[in-house]
């Protein structure tokens, strides 16, 4: 196999893995607090549109990224107000937020740019090459010649791990997700913790969306999140709710998605749809095998307090 093909494959793997990593690490924190935010897809698409509009308005891609994170956070706030504040069913609320997010972003996009579908050209988040590291053979350019959002995801994984497993706040977060009544009895503000964990997850999903629009595609398109919110939720399970493993799992999914480019380059005569299905097959295989032994937070998806 030509060397360049493999390098291109690895680059694509990371590029496709980064938005998944961002969204999934945020969702891992949210789920550790006992909230499963199925509305993640809504935060991603909201982040993509917010990022696009922010970058257009300011002419600055970095400002667009911030706007994207803010948009993702706002979408998650809708979810949080219902599921935590009003104790609505998390699955149904999340589904509504996803569908609503996809519809609303499409409507805003059409209202702003017309229904003709003229491709939007955005200020893009250019790759930044890390001196030295990017020269490492094979993986150097894949890992260290990427958009700044990629470096953010590398940095977040150990930071979030430390937060979860080594700090008092992380302990509270895990306790809230495992046994909210016990956490409350110990003096932890359960709903407050869950609220912020959900907003944090939404902000990271918004970042993932902004990355899609500003670093990946360079434009906004309706439904451009393309199910990544749901894949991210699978990535969380595969990564066992541990930010370090979640990053690894996200890159693995990125690799599975990038495989289509590699196999096409190798000239294999197979329908490309097969390769598009690969990440999803990987999801099923992973859930059945490796993850069979891991355990979700005990209070995940349960409205709290139980009685009012």
């Amino acid at each position, binding site marked *: 196999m030509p060397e360049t093909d493999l390098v291109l494959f690895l680059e694509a793997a990371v590029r496709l893995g980064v938005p998944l990593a961002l969204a999934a690490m945020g969702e891992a924190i949210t789920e550790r607090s006992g909230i499963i935010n199925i509305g993640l897809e809504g935060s991603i698409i909201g982040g993509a549109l917010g990022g696009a509009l922010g970058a257009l308005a300011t002419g600055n891609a970095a400002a667009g990224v911030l706007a994207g994170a803010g948009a993702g956070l706002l979408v998650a706030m809708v979810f949080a107000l219902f599921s935590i504040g009003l104790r609505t069913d998390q699955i149904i609320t999340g589904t509504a937020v996803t569908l609503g997010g996809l519809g609303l972003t499409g409507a805003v996009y059409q209202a702003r740019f017309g229904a003709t579908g003229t491709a939007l050209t955005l200020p893009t988040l250019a790759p930044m090459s890390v001196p030295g590291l990017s020269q490492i053979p094979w993986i150097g350019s894949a890992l260290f010649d990427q958009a700044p959002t990629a470096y953010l995801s590398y940095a977040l994984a150990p930071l979030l791990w430390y937060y979860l497993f080594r700090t008092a706040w992380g*302990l509270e977060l895990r306790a809230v997700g*495992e046994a909210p009544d*016990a956490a409350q*009895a110990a003096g932890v503000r359960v709903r407050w913790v869950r609220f912020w964990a959900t907003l944090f997850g939404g902000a990271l999903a918004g970042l993932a969306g902004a990355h899609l629009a500003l670093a990946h595609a360079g434009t906004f398109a309706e439904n451009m999140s393309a199910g990544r919110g749901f894949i991210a939720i699978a990535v969380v399970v595969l990564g066992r709710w541990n930010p370090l493993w979640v990053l690894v799992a996200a890159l693995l999914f990125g690799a599975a998605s990038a495989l289509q480019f590699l196999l096409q380059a190798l000239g294999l005569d197979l329908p490309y749809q097969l390769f598009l299905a690969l990440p999803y097959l990987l999801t099923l295989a992973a859930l059945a095998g490796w993850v069979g032994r891991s355990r979700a937070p005990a209070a995940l998806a349960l409205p709290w307090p139980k009685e009012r």
Partner: protein
Amino acid sequence: MTPVLASLRGLVRRFGSVTALAGANLEVFGGEVHGVLGENGAGKSTLLGVLGGVVRPEEGELEISGQPVELRGPRDAWRHGVGLVHQHFTLVPSLTVLENLSLGRDAGASGFALPQTRVRPAAERMMARTGLSVPLDELVEDLGVGDRQRVEILKALLREPPILVLDEPTAVLTPAEVDSLFDLLRELARQGRAVVLVAHKIEEVLAVADRVTVLRRGRTVLTSERGGVDPHRLVRAMVGEDAATQTAVGLGAATGGVVGEASGGLLAGEVVATLDGVRANRASGAAALVDVSLQIRRGEVVGVAGVEGNGQRELALLLTGRLSPPAGVATVPDGVGFIPQDRTVEGIVGEFDLVENMALALHDDPDAGRGMWLDWPWIRQEAEAVRSRFGVVAPDVGARAEGLSGGNQQRLVVGRELRRARDLLVAENPTRGLDVAATAFVHAEIGRITSVEGGPGVVLLSTDLDEVLALSTRLLVMTGGRLLEVPEGSRTREGIGRLMLGGLQPDV
């Protein structure tokens, strides 16, 4: 002059159609241990819950250190200096003991510090000081109820609250641990703190309390210095003047005064269960049972005393057919009743009503229906029978089990399992959390079912020595995964205590 640290006046609180508090008062001084007594459902836990911030009263006033306060949650209570040790466990099972002890402690100020490293030395000091010893690095879910209770108490003590409130902390502790806990409570009182204690044994409360408050049906009916009351007056206050004479029999056993042979067991009959050279392991792989052999006959009550965690759990699982031994032979019958150590986990489904909870246990009874159809009217009748016979306080049998007080849930489970035990009854601390009258009743029922012709055999696993001594026809001690027969001459608290301690270090 001792200050009033907490004052609760005219508290009213209803849960659905059940009135838990109907004008209850409690006044607690600094420097005293204050005992709270009452029957199941008298409102003890609710009253303590108000002080601990977990129950918000509908009416009434609460003052702490002379200031009127409104507690909106446990967090508020902690901030006002009230530490509550709950009757049910409030630990996070998937976290370690140390993590549980660290949880929620001034996290806002130092959220990025390593809480475990700060708490570990404090926890070790407190364990040394109190004699309450727990494995700090084990997961709570791997601990027995005795250890969990110790963790609960340590958790509250570590925060050194000026007002310490304990809801039935002694039920699963050994006698020696109860003594050292009481020493500690007196020490805390000497430092000027207030200690409020609910215990289900009158003698325990009298042993430690400076003053006593008695609740009946949600009202405070008596508050007195310890010197001003005797056990009989307290029982009269708890159950009301009319009922007092009827429960006088139960008082002896429940206050630990009576030690002797139960009347049943004289007609020990056919063997219903056999263990032969059985071994069992814990999830961690450590040996839990070492070469245990045991025969249980109809009509006998085999009492198994011992410190929590010496293999009793595995023995119970074996006898109820839920564990097949890796070595040895266990033969157990079909009609087994099981009173579990934690009713909320293995006894009842909180979301189910009383009838459905009844059906869970009786669905394979020949009378309960045919094939996949259940005879619901019959099951309802059985539920009604248990409710009335065992005095389960519930609006009706359609009420959800989680709405019942702890003691009433226990009555439901005990009544149901006695009904189910055609061949064998396995009971783990069956009177834990029950009041004087209910305890006496359960003891009498165990005596009754074993004294009728063809009645089941009973295995009574209990950390309450008085209970084991009072009920057993055969007495064993479980220690380090072994069963030791208690010789006739050693059937005393002291004799059993010696055997229990002999095996604290299992030689496996």
